[in-house]
Each structure stands twice: as structure tokens, then as C-alpha cells.
């Protein structure tokens, strides 16, 4: 039902049930917000979005008020502007004056609001909450003194990710967002998905930035700098930098990385093929030994940590194959080095990913073998973009160069592993070859159907029928657990912790939205269609690598370089 209300003296048609803020956004009036989150029930916490109702003394928050017939709204009256400005000034009065040294300098919502409101004076002064910075975790840094208590992290983490690492604690001026019992993040139940980091309006939550640490090694004469990136990174950059689809984005990224100073640059796709094969190895073993089923994917480190801490009874269900990103490390340190007559320790490997949890994964002790870690440093796409700026690279004008490393051929799996359902599709394809001896043309799962939260289906392979479940985002994990409790006929489960899998990962640019995620996903799918090798088992180079460098059968049994193990974690959940 529609009716008319008055906004800034003009009649506006509105629908019943819409909030004032929705109407304002629709008609192009911008009202500042801090606590409001798209697709979440408004809490009305920050009061920054207040508007004036004619004839009313109290200002009302537009995000949490629905339109009503009698409303005459003023969105930018002097009273409203003063109130909003005062609210920002109140926040600033209890905020460290740290902008120039801050992770979010120039990209901070609080800073932007202060600028928009033209705050030019410390009008409100007084004490500030001083708290220690929690740098305990390898992936996420928490600096409570910069927290403005908007609640976004609390909500995304509990309502979407189902983890609830943070909660509001204490009250009044002592209110603070903290993990259980004020424990540091590294001993909390955080799965390092980084969703909260992307949503935090300030630098109260930030990822641990590794690139400056990594830069040191550019000057180390004993190290050759190597870098790997996934096709997803290419798709994200293509979207972020607005590339014409005709540009060869891989060539651009290669050139950027070489310009920054990396000597060895390669795409993780080959490692994705290794992962598919090794997943089949584990799965075939399970068939031989009658379980345990279902086998869970373990390529998403956030999901892995979740299982370890919350469902230790399922640890044995996690696939023991290392994730493609870790396998890329194995590939670099044990294959590329030998191709180039180097020792594993001669290279310093950086992995660029859309994922913050991968930082944590790379630091797991089981990812280091005899003092040589698979990956030396994980940086997020966000950090990569910052490096591009730091090294003064104009991505649109860079002269692209192609070199030998670039020519590694791999199957389509590298393009799909970061998309929900992609791992399942490629795994089943590979498995089908190992079971039937033939490469199948058919698609097991339409990857174009990615935005469904949870899908369940059966596949027929030889004499076997396998039950498969694909979960897109932690929010469907409770449904999955319910399903597993009730059913015995599920053999394979893929879980990617982030909504839209890695295309909604925690290491993406801050202004990333669902729309941008969808567009870059489309790039990946389009690229995948043009790829010639449709199944890892058709990858000739892969076979050679197994034979000449890894010296294991394809697929291997449990190989300590290609496989890993998991541990129960005793944290407050």
C-alpha cells in the first residue's frame, strides 16, 4: 500500500512498512549512519541518522522508524545538523587523535563524518577511554579505544557467522566490545573470517598488516621473492579497478608484482589441481575403509577452525588434503625451487588472497615441515591494493610483460575454488575420473546457482550414489548440523565460511558489496568457460609434477607434504 508523506516540504510517495531511511536513500537524500546494516534489523543505536518531525520536540532515528501518513520530515534542519554534529563530536572527544598513524586513515567512516559535518574545533573535551591494543592474533587486531560501539561486528559475527566472538560488555562509559571474559582474540573462538573487519567503520578492528614486514625481505640477498595469487584475486582487482573485460588482467597483475620486486610470480591454479587430486585420495581411502563420512572440505580455514573448536567430534571428517593456498606454498618450495635449482629455503613466498583466515592457516604449526613453512606471508587483496599505491603503480597504464612463470597451465579448478560450489564441482569431476576412469563432460552442480545458502543433491558415479551438501556461508551451518544429525546418506560436504564464499571474504576492499561480489564472480565463471582443461586429471603438467618432483602416486595416500591434520581447540565458544 502506498501513501504520501512530506519530506523537506515536498510530497513523496512511500510504501507502508518502509523505514524513513529506506525512503530517503531511494529518493537520493543522504543521511549519515553508523549502526545501520543492510539486511539487518535496525537497532537505532548511534542516533546519527536522526531527522526532525514537524511539530515534535524529539528527533527520531530514520533507520528504525517506519513511515506513517502524518509524517512531515526535515532531514537537514538546523536542529538536526547540530544534533548530528554533536554526536560526532561526542565520539571524537572519546577517541584517540591518531588519524595520521591509523590503519584507516583516509578510509574511515568516523573521519569522513567528522569531515562532512565540518568539525573544526575540540568543542567537547574530557577524558578518553584508554585500552590496550589486542595484537594477540595473527589475523585480526582489536583496538578498543577506537571503537565507537556501533555493534556491527557483534551482529555480523553472531547473526551471520554464528560465532559470537564479541559481545558488548559492561555498561555506560565502560561499555566495550570484547571476547568472552576479556580474553585476547587468539584464545577466543574467532575463526578469523574478517567479516567484522570489513564492516567496522573505524580502525577498532583491522587485519594484521603483513606487507611492511614482508618488504624487509626485498633487501635480503639470500632470499628470492616469490608470490602467488588466485584467479579470484584477479577477478576482484578487475572489478575494483574497473578493467575492461578485454584486458588480460593476469598479465597486468604479473607485471604489477614484478614491478614491486617479486622475481617469481605464479597463479595458484596448479595447486588447486593438486588439492582436487589429493581430496580424491582421502575420499577413496574413506570408501575403502568405510568412512568416516561425510568428508568435509577443509580448504576454508575459518570453517576448519570452527569444526576444531565447536564440533571436535567431526574433526575426523575434515579432508586431510591441504588447502589450495597452502599447496601453492608446497608447489613453490618443492617444485619451483627444484625447477630453478634452488633450495626451498631460498625463496620467501607471499600469498595474496581475499581471506584473512588464511593468515591464521599459514601460521598453523602443521603447515611447516622441517623448519620450512609452506607460506611465509599471507597478504589480503586490501593490502595488495595498498602496495600498488605505495609503489606508485598506475594499473591502467602499466606496460604488461609476460614471462615464463606465467605460462603454467592448469585446469579450470583454480578459477572455481573461491566460489561456493566450485570446489564440489571440481572434486566430483576429478573423483568421477578416478572411479570410472573417464573424464566426464557433465556439470555436477551449476555454478551459476551460487547464491543459494545450502544445497543438497545426490550424484551417481559408477555403482556409487553420493550424497552431497554445499553450504555457502556460516549462517547455514546450524541447518547443516541438523541435517547431519538426522541423516546417514551424506558423503561430501563443502562449507565456505563467508557469504558468497571468498568473493565475500574478509580481505576484500572495504567498499566491497554484494553487487561487486556478484560481478567479480561472473568474471571468474566467464574465464572458466574459456579454459581448455576442464579436469585436473587432464592436466599434463600436473602429472609430470607428481612424477618428477613430488614423487608420489596421483592421488597419493597420506603424504606429509600434501596433507595435514587438525586439533581440538579448547576455547570459550
Amino acid at each position: 500500500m502506498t501513501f504520501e508523506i512530506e519530506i523537506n516540504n515536498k510530497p513523496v510517495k512511500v510504501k507502508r512498512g518502509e523505514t524513513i531511511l529506506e525512503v530517503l536513500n531511494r529518493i537520493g537524500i543522504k543521511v549519515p549512519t553508523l549502526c545501520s546494516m543492510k539486511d539487518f534489523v535496525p537497532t537505532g543505536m548511534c542516533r546519527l541518522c536522526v531527522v526532525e518531525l514537524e511539530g515534535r520536540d524529539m528527533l527520531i532515528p530514520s533507520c528504525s522508524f517506519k513511515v506513517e501518513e502524518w509524517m512531515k520530515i526535515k532531514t537537514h534542519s538546523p536542529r538536526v545538523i547540530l544534533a548530528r554534529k554533536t554526536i560526532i563530536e561526542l565520539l571524537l572527544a572519546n577517541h584517540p587523535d591518531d588519524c595520521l598513524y591509523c590503519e584507516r586513515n583516509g578510509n574511515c567512516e568516523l573521519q569522513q563524518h567528522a569531515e562532512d559535518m565540518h568539525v573544526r574545533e575540540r568543542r567537547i573535551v574530557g577524558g578518553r577511554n584508554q585500552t590496550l591494543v589486542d595484537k594477540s592474533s595473527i589475523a585480526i587486531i582489536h583496538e578498543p579505544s577506537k571503537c565507537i560501539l556501533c555493534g556491527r561486528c557483534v551482529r555480523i559475527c553472531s547473526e551471520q557467522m554464528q560465532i559470537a566472538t564479541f559481545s558488548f560488555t559492561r555498561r555506560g562509559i565502560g561499555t566495550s566490545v570484547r571476547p568472552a571474559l576479556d580474553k585476547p582474540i587468539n584464545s577466543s573462538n574467532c575463526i578469523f573470517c574478517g567479516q567484522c573487519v570489513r564492516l567496522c567503520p573505524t580502525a577498532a578492528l583491522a587485519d594484521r598488516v603483513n606487507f611492511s614486514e614482508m618488504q624487509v625481505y626485498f633487501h635480503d640477498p639470500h632470499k628470492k621473492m616469490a608470490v602467488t595469487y588466485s584467479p579470484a584475486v584477479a577477478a576482484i582487482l578487475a572489478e575494483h579497478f574497473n578493467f575492461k573485460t578485454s584486458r588480460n588482467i593476469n598479465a597486468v597483475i604479473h607485471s604489477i608484482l614484478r614491478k614491486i620486486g617479486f622475481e617469481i610470480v605464479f597463479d595458484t591454479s596448479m595447486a588447486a589441481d593438486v588439492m582436487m587430486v589429493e581430496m580424491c585420495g582421502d575420499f577413496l581411502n574413506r570408501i575403502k575403509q568405510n568412512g568416516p563420512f561425510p568428508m568435509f572440505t577443509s580448504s576454508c580455514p575459518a570453517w576448519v577452525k570452527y569444526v576444531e573448536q565447536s564440533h571436535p567430534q567431526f574433526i575426523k571428517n575434515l579432508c586431510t588434503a591441504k588447502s589450495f593456498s597452502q599447496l601453492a606454498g608446497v608447489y613453490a618450495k618443492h617444485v619451483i625451487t627444484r625447477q630453478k635449482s634452488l633450495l626451498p629455503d631460498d625463496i620467501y613466498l607471499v600469498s595474496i588472497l581475499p581471506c584473512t583466515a588464511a593468515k591464521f592457516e599459514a601460521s598453523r604449526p602443521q603447515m611447516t615441515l622441517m623448519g620450512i613453512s609452506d607460506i611465509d606471508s599471507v597478504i589480503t587483496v586490501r593490502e595488495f591494493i595498498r602496495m600498488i599505491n605505495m609503489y606508485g603503480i598506475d594499473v591502467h597504464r602499466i606496460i604488461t610483460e609476460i614471462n615464463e612463470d606465467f605460462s603454467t597451465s592448469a585446469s579450470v579448478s583454480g578459477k572455481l575454488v573461491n566460489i561456493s560450489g566450485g570446489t564440489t564441482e571440481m572434486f566430483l569431476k576429478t573423483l568421477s575420473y578416478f572411479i570410472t576412469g573417464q573424464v566426464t563432460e557433465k556439470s555436477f552442480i551449476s555454478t551459476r546457482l551460487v547464491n543459494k545458502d545450502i544445497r543438497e543433491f545426490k550424484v551417481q558415479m559408477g555403482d556409487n550414489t553420493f550424497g552431497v551438501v554445499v553450504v555457502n556461508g556460516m549462517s547455514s551451518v546450524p541447518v547443516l548440523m541438523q541435517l547431519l544429525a538426522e541423516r546417514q546418506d551424506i558423503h561430501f560436504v563443502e562449507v565456505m565460511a563467508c557469504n558468497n564464499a571468498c568473493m565475500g571474504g574478509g580481505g576484500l576492499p572495504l567498499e566491497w558489496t554484494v553487487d561487486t561480489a556478484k560481478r567479480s564472480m561472473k568474471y571468474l565463471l566467464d574465464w572458466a568457460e574459456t579454459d581448455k582443461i576442464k579436469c585436473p586429471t587432464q592436466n599434463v603438467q600436473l602429472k609430470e609434477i607428481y612424477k618428477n618432483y613430488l614423487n608420489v602416486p596421483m592421488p597419493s595416500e597420506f603424504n606429509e607434504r600434501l596433507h595435514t591434520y587438525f586439533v581440538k581447540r579448547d576455547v570459550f565458544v
Partner: protein
Amino acid sequence: MSEDKLESLLQVYPSGRQEYLIPALQDMQQQWGYIPEWAIKRLAAHLQIPASTIYGVATFYNQFRFVPKGKYHFQLCYGTACYLFGASTLLQELESMLGIKDGEISDDGIFSLEVGGCLGGCAQAPVVAVNGEFYGNLSLSQLQKMVENIKLEESISA
């Protein structure tokens, strides 16, 4: 021992319902005088509520403590009437004599201090309670004597 106590205490509350969180915490507080860390873990599992949520709820309210009570638990009323009759001076004195602040316990476990709202004895303001026993119309010197007596007693018995 304590674990058994907790189990029997939890039995009263059906699993998975957040509305029983506060009563359960109140029972724990009653039982031990504070909320022990291990009990939060168990409570989280029983009620199926994240531990962070439990901690967030517990720290919101005045009643819950996370450190044990001392042998002598001082409660000082800081309600309006008591304030008007000098509770702030008493507080200062208590803090300096006991060497602890609101919500803390002394290192030797003898004293703990809690500053709270009106205890209901406004006509006797200012009011201090020690282990639940009320002392009204308390003067600074009476309070000092009280603490000194306890200290004396403790040093003799020790």
C-alpha cells in the same frame, strides 16, 4: 565437588533457553559469591548460549562479580541519602584502609568491597554492611574502628 554443585544447580533450568541465564548466574553468585570462569564454560554449553554473550550479560549488571568475596565483604551504600550524609568520605577511607577499590578483593583475601545503590536504610544514612550485617548512622571514626578491629583480630588469629 564444585562441578557437582554446578550440575545440580543447572538441572533446574531447561537447556537452550536464554531466559534462564540470569537466574542461573544468580544461583552461581549465591553459591560461590562470584562467577567462576569454568562455570561460564559449562553454563554456555548447557544453555547453548555463546560464552561471550554470557559474559556480556553478566558484566552489564551490578550483582555479578568475577572475583571471590573476601572474608569480610564490605558493602557501602552510595545512594542519594547516604551520599548526602557523607558516604563519599566513608568510601575514600574504606578504599585507603582496605587498599582496594569497588569490586576488588585484597591480596590476602580478607577484605572485599562493593559500592552499591540504596540499601533501603536511608533513615539510617550512611549505611555500611559487613557480611550482610548492617551498620547505620556510621561516623568516620566508627568505621575506622571497625576496620581496625577486624585487622587486629585477623593478625591475632593468623
